[in-house]
């Protein structure tokens, strides 16, 4: 008996080995983020002569966090939430309040006091690596996530008893209510002295003072319908990609854990998994809370990005739809798929915004198309399937053809002396919508289906013709 015990203990790896295995991806993520911030960002700036590319990369990162967190609810658990942007708004506003008013408290103004890790714009560099402003920012990220998670719990507990479409509608309703509430908040105060005098919680004055003397407490001064403006910009490639890494790690670990398997069982058949003893409501609420946490952090990152005016209107259901589009395009339940789709969905409208830029990007697009087609062709030759590569190649080729067709028509019109008065930028959302519909018809399971890029089953041998799939 003792021998069996000994053997069992031998099977369990020692603590240092476990620690190392658990921790090294985290360090890899941090190293990667440092490289991005210290090497890639300056390089991108020299290449493009501005911070446009870095900004797009930043947006990609934030969208990856959102898409992967929504994958936990929509993809793993199979629940359908269309109020994800509301959690983003909660996190964003919480963090914005903390950073803005905290910064007013410490420095007396709301300009960024960033160290090297969190600068996007060169002239805000103050020399240090990590400043007090950065500390405030990190705290605000975590606080944004936690407040959003609490909101997720509050929304999830009553509504996750519902199923399917009804759940979707309730999440939508909560999101809209939240938007209206935020829009009714008081204006932001720009006066440091007034902010220091204002109550932080301010519930006491409701009882102690007459109504005319009530002051809006700080937590209720969030900018109202016009949005929260004047926020310091702290979000940099470093912070975004650290969070991206953590989100991905959590999602992967979750997918392969007992917890995650409970999620997956709910997705496959809720009634059956309940019969097998899975407490479905509990796991659904957990999935909801985890997803809300990361959405909140993403909102906090989003709030402190350059060129962003934090407003509740912008984080309405249309933003939620954007996130769902990413999840579905990537394939429901595929983390890597969601991340790839988030990148594509972020880049595509930017590319289509300016057709001349699209023409300039031809070599890259053609390159990616040919590469995908070549790999897919080789795999096809070896008798393996790579349908998602084909769809990438197909999309790239479509983009090329469209570009050259449009370019040709415009040139032809110029040549015949009737220049077309068409701004191609106007059509970008139409092209985007059309490609969405086409994708759903031609490849309904999304880019990767439920697989990950490195899943062997994705590259498995093709089924024999005529065989059952």
């Amino acid at each position: 008996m003792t021998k069996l015990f000994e053997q069992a203990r031998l099977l369990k790896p020692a603590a240092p080995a476990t620690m190392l295995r658990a921790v090294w991806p985290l360090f890899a993520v941090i190293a990667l983020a440092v490289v991005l911030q210290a090497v890639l960002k300056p390089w991108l700036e020299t290449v493009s002569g501005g911070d446009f590319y870095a900004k797009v990369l930043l947006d990609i990162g934030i969208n990856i966090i959102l898409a992967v967190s929504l994958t936990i609810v929509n993809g793993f658990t199979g629940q359908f939430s269309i109020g994800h942007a509301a959690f983003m708004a909660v996190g964003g506003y919480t963090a914005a309040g903390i950073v803005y008013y905290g910064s007013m408290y410490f420095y007396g103004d709301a300009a960024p006091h960033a160290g090297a890790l969190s600068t996007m714009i060169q002239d805000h560099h103050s020399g240090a690596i990590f400043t007090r402003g950065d500390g405030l920012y990190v705290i605000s990220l975590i606080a944004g996530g936690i407040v959003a998670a609490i909101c997720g719990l509050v929304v999830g507990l009553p509504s996750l008893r519902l199923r399917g479409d009804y759940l979707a509608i309730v999440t939508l309703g909560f999101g809209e209510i939240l938007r209206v509430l935020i829009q009714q908040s008081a204006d932001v105060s720009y006066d440091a002295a007034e902010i220091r005098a204002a109550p932080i919680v301010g519930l006491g004055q409701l009882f102690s003072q007459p109504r005319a003397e009530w002051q809006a407490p700080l937590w209720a001064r969030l900018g109202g319908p016009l949005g929260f403006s004047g926020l310091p910009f702290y979000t940099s490639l470093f912070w975004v990609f650290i969070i991206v890494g953590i989100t991905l790690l959590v999602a992967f670990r979750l997918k392969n854990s007992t917890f995650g398997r409970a999620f997956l069982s709910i997705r496959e058949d809720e009634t059956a998994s309940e019969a097998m003893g899975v407490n479905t409501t509990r796991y659904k609420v957990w999935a909801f809370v985890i997803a809300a946490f990361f959405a909140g952090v993403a909102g906090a990152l989003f709030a402190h990005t350059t060129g962003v005016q934090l407003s509740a209107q912008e984080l309405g259901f249309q933003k939620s739809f954007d996130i769902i589009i990413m999840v579905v395009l990537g394939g429901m339940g595929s983390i890597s798929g969601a991340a790839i789709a988030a990148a594509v969905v972020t880049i595509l409208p930017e590319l289509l915004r300016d057709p001349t830029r699209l023409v300039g990007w031809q070599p890259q697009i053609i390159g990616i198309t040919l590469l995908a087609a070549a790999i897919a062709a080789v795999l096809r030759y070896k008798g393996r399937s790579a349908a998602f590569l084909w769809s990438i190649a197909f999309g790239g080729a479509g983009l090329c053809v469209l570009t050259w067709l449009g370019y040709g028509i415009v040139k032809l019109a110029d040549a015949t002396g009737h220049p077309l008065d068409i701004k191609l930028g106007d059509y970008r959302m139409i092209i985007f919508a059309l490609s969405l519909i086409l994708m759903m018809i031609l490849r309904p399971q999304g880019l990767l289906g439920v697989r990950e890029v490195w899943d062997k089953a994705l590259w498995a041998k093709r089924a024999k013709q005529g065989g059952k799939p």
Partner: protein
Amino acid sequence: MDAVAVGSLYALIALGYTMVYGILKFINFAHSDIFVLGAWISFAAASATGWAAASNHPIGPAPWVWWVVILLSAAAVIATGVEFASASRAGRKFDIRYTRSAGVLTLMSVWAWAAIAMLFGAKVAHDHEGLHLLSGGLILLCAMLTCGLVSFTLERVAYKPLRKAPRLNVLITAIGVSLLLQNAGQLEHMFGTRPTRMPALLPDRVLASIGGGGAANTPSVEVHLVDVIGAGTALVLMLALDWLVFRTKMGRAMRAVSYNEKVAALMGIPVDRIISFTFVLGAMLAAAAGFLYAMKYPGLNQSAAPVWVLLGLKAFVAAVVGGIGNVRGAMLGGLLIGLIEFFGAKYLSTDFRDVYVFGLLIVVLLVRPSGILGKAVADKV
């Protein structure tokens, strides 16, 4: 009175949501855009018939509309010819109803010509003094026909290939269609991005003032003629729909498909045709709602404005509150939402009017998840 007028419009839009959900079990997010399209088409039709005073639109439909309609008709003629030739070569009797494309294309082109005929009728009626109300009615019919046609096309092109796909995919497609309609509406060739003012096609005056004055100096409730006409039209349409769904053969087929699609197909019901019919019916009601809404609130926003989406969402909430999939429930829900929104705005606070609507939704869903008139459906294992 506002509450009843707007509530009946919500009910009209909600009917489209609920019918489509009843049959296909998916939320047609593009439905609110059909509503917007209805409002804008009635504007375009009104300016094309010379209603709008300072209109930069030429009289008559835009040139590209002619091209589309003519090409459609040509395609219909060619398809009919091809089908007829192949039928006679194979020795079959030619019946246009059982052709693959000719029937659909012919239907569409006849439909489009009918819409244009309505437009010219409206123009003639506009030029004669006493016939203005008739002109308004014809513009309404024109908008309804056009929206029906658009919805028919969308259903055939975007939704039909996805009949067997997971519901989420259909939903994403609906969002895609919605994006498409919103952004296509913003193009300069369509309606542009500037908000415009709808001309008053219906006569408006205060019919009666109820209450008011007195010690508390409360404002009186004014009954406007336009509200009465709007609510009346909506009511007539709803009664007609109720008759159609519960008293005719078509309605029985619709209910059968909604109850069980496979069995309905086995019973010889042409399921695809019924689904298309449902979409067209919903779109026509939404277009009517768009027209009436534009009569009541003449400021027309651009087609992607958040105001429109919110209106559509509220109509959807009405459908859910009444019990989604239930036609009479949608009517009830629409009126209820209208009443709650306007009474809340009047007596509590205007700022939170959206909160009342969505709050009602959440309360109803938590207390009675299948809606007021809906039936609870148990999961089968």
